[in-house]
């Protein structure tokens, strides 16, 4: 599975969204991406890429696109 596929799957599974909804998706834009959903999403991403994110990055992870930028810091290219 490519990094993009893993990344998308984390969003789709955690937030119960479709792939077509991912581009431009932001925190709190869908009901499932609330503070509870956010923690689940981060857990899924950490598991998918075997990384441990810093607290600031978890807090800053505010959109599908922003998440891709943040993951570069962990040597994960999407």
């Amino acid at each position, binding site marked *: 599975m490519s990094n993009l596929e893993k990344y998308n799957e984390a969003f789709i599974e955690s937030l119960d969204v479709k792939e077509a909804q991912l581009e431009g998706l932001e925190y709190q834009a869908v009901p499932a991406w609330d503070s509870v959903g956010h*923690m689940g999403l981060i857990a899924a991403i950490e598991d998918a890429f075997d990384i441990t994110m810093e607290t600031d990055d978890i*807090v800053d992870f505010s959109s599908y696109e922003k998440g891709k930028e943040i993951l570069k810091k962990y040597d994960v290219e999407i």
Partner: protein
Amino acid sequence: MKIFCFNPAGGNVTFWDELRRYIPEHEMITYDYPGHGSRKREPLCEDIDVIISEIVDEIYRSCRDSDEYVLAGYSMGSIVAVATLKRIIDDKRIEAPQRLLLFAHSPRIGRKDLIDEKEKDQYIKCRILELGGIPDDLINNPIFWRVCFPLYRNDFYMMWNYNMEKLRGVFKIPLSVFYSQQDIPLEEILEWNDFFLGENDYYNYPGGHFFLKKNYLDISKVIGMILR
């Protein structure tokens, strides 16, 4: 009337959103502690005096001499409200508030020196879980604890650092206390009478520590009546 509202430990200003909808006739002014909510990028602060200084500056900016206002605090926010009241009285820059509204806390704040140093984190975590308020989906989520536990720890330490004993018999302004006997027994809640010597009233609700979330309508009616 302006109601300055202070959050529970680990909380942020969104805690008051629902209650705000029920009392639109009053202006609820909320405040995020450093490192919490909208101020999440700032360092946490354990020094309650620093936080009180910020709060009173905001109150002095918001209130003109003739403005009536009250202070409200939920759980640890009650201690912040009381500490703020003390500072306002000492500063003598504006009139004291009309009343305090305290939720879900007695004057007892515990002492961190009574808890074994190595067990403090575990104590705090157990206490947070006992009090409820953590969604079930997050209780076993390591990300949640990694991100949020430092805020809880900071706030517990901040509260533990405050000396409530020096405030016995100090206050004469009216006090209204909202509590749940399922959380704090009445005899402990009534200890506020040792600190506030004026007219105090007490309101009990079912629902444990976060009883507010199950009683917005009733509580808003009481607040409306009290502040009329």
